[in-house]
């Protein structure tokens, strides 16, 4: 069974085209990430799939049914960044309400809601009204409402944005636990998180899916070495490394001066790796970490840049 099938989907807001002929399918097999720049169309895409926004043209099917089919009521959980709770009603009551809509009786709704909020790391805010909750507490409440009732498809828009590291970790753990029972589509700017929990990535730009790749494949692709040194690299080191003929490019990470990204063109990566390490050692550096392949961030940036070229 196909979890999501989107065909030639377009959404226009007056003169603005938010989605422009988007097509893809999602089967079970691990969370799918939507990444792209601000305004690329990720939130609009999730909203249309959820049936919150009406498409201008094209079609969306969920579990092989049209996405507005009555049988899908309660089978899709949604966390939208710009959706807020009723400010004057306690958080637990609001989750219970959604659980009751999904068919639970009040007792089961209460226990399921409390269990879910516990799994998210903290239930101390259960009875607070969203109006007085912190941003992180409201976010966790939002994730709980998306997951209550065990929906078959869960659409999460920036699920960990604004959360402290411990809460974000709890959310990621919860997604990992549940992704065997439900299909997750996650929009995120946090590419490390995407790499951590997702299996596949849809890169969205200007309302179009510009690439649809397996994350593991993307990380393997490309002849790149990510090197972390024991100290900051001096400017001359780049020219020293560039003397090796098989190295095509060496870059510093501006945010981490002890890190180098080395692009190579070779069929014998193992030999070249040893050669680079030897050269670094002879110049007074030691390698504390060395990883092959592009980072997801690199891969995504390249995809977006390539799409912008005429």
């Amino acid at each position, binding site marked *: 069974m196909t979890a999501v099938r989107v065909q030639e989907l377009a959404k226009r807001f007056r003169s603005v085209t938010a989605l422009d002929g988007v097509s893809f399918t999602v089967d079970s097999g691990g969370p799918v990430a939507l990444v792209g720049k601000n305004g690329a169309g990720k939130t609009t895409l999730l*909203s249309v799939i*959820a*049936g*919150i*926004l*009406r498409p201008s043209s094209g079609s969306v099917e969920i579990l092989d049914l049209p996405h507005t089919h*009555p049988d899908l*009521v*309660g089978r*899709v*959980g*949604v966390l*939208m960044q*710009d*959706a*807020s*709770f*009723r400010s*004057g*009603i306690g958080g637990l*009551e609001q989750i219970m*309400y*959604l659980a*009751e*809509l*999904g*068919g639970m009786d009040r007792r089961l709704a209460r226990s399921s809601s409390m269990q879910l909020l516990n799994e998210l790391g903290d239930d101390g805010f259960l009875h607070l009204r969203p109006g007085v909750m912190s941003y992180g507490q409201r976010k966790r409440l*939002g994730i709980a*409402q998306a997951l209550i*009732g065990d929906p078959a498809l869960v659409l999460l828009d920036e699920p960990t944005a604004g959360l402290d590291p411990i809460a974000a970790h709890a959310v990621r753990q919860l997604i990992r636990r549940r992704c065997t029972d439900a299909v997750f589509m996650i929009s995120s700017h946090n590419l490390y998180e995407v790499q951590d929990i997702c299996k596949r990535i849809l890169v969205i730009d200007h309302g179009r899916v510009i690439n649809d790749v397996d994350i593991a494949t993307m990380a393997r692709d490309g002849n790149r070495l990510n090197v972390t040194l024991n100290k900051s690299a001096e400017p001359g080191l780049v020219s020293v490394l560039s003397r090796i003929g098989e190295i095509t490019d060496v870059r510093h990470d501006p945010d981490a001066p002890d890190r180098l990204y080395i692009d190579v063109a070779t069929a014998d990566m193992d030999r070249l790796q040893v050669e680079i390490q030897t050269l670094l050692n002879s110049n007074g550096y030691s390698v504390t970490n060395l990883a092959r392949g592009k980072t997801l961030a690199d891969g995504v940036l390249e995809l977006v840049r390539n799409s912008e070229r005429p």
Partner: protein
Amino acid sequence: MSWRRIGVILRFELRYGALDAKGLVFLIPFLLLWYFIIHSFDRDVSAWLGTREGVIVMSMLFDPGMANLLFVDHPPLLSVFFLLSLSMAPVFSMLAAYDQFASDIGSGYLRLVGVRCRRLELFLARIFAALCLLLISHAAIGAVAAWVSIYQDGVPAVEAVAYLGQILLTIALYFSPFVVYMALVSALARSAIAALVLGMAGYLMLLAIIWLGNLLLPGTGYFQFVLPSAVKYHLLGLDTINSIAAIASLPLYTTAYGWAAWAVFRIRNF
């Protein structure tokens, strides 16, 4: 469509909607007004309305047959409740029903609820909730008026209760088109205050158009039937045929306004 889900939404809205800001916008003026009316409506005035002098004075405001029907044939205090409820129905309906969807569309809350139920269920449940709020509050005031009629004015209990039932049934039907009209307005707006202003402005504009039409263009009087208030007078029950026609017309108003509201809400982006 699931009546169970409609029931869940209705219960939730009644439990929490009545006492939050949007409910209080209706309840506070409603209760204050009726407290003032019942408190100032002492025994003498109530009894006086049923006397020959009272009927003569009331005949200046209503035609004699109507004054007689309201204040002699029926318990006067309940008739006053009936009259005032009908007269104030547009205002109180707007105050009770102005925010059926608007603020929840603006805040994005309907994005969360919208995937847990069908739109039609949400639409109907919110309308029922606003209608229930109006009816429960009017029933409470009506019960007080009936109690006063029975224990202070000596009206037989059966007569008072039967008349109160007739009143509540009639005003329930009369409130419905106004509540549904506000559902239409609320589905168009993105904030509670915008919905209230838009609803009141729209209603007043229609009244002004009807009034000007009557004044400037003879023969356009039928246009007044765009609004349910055109049949209000007949709901009081003086003329049986017209009363039945008036009561029968109210579901038609509700259906027509409701269709327009649903047409907007059905395709509304949350």
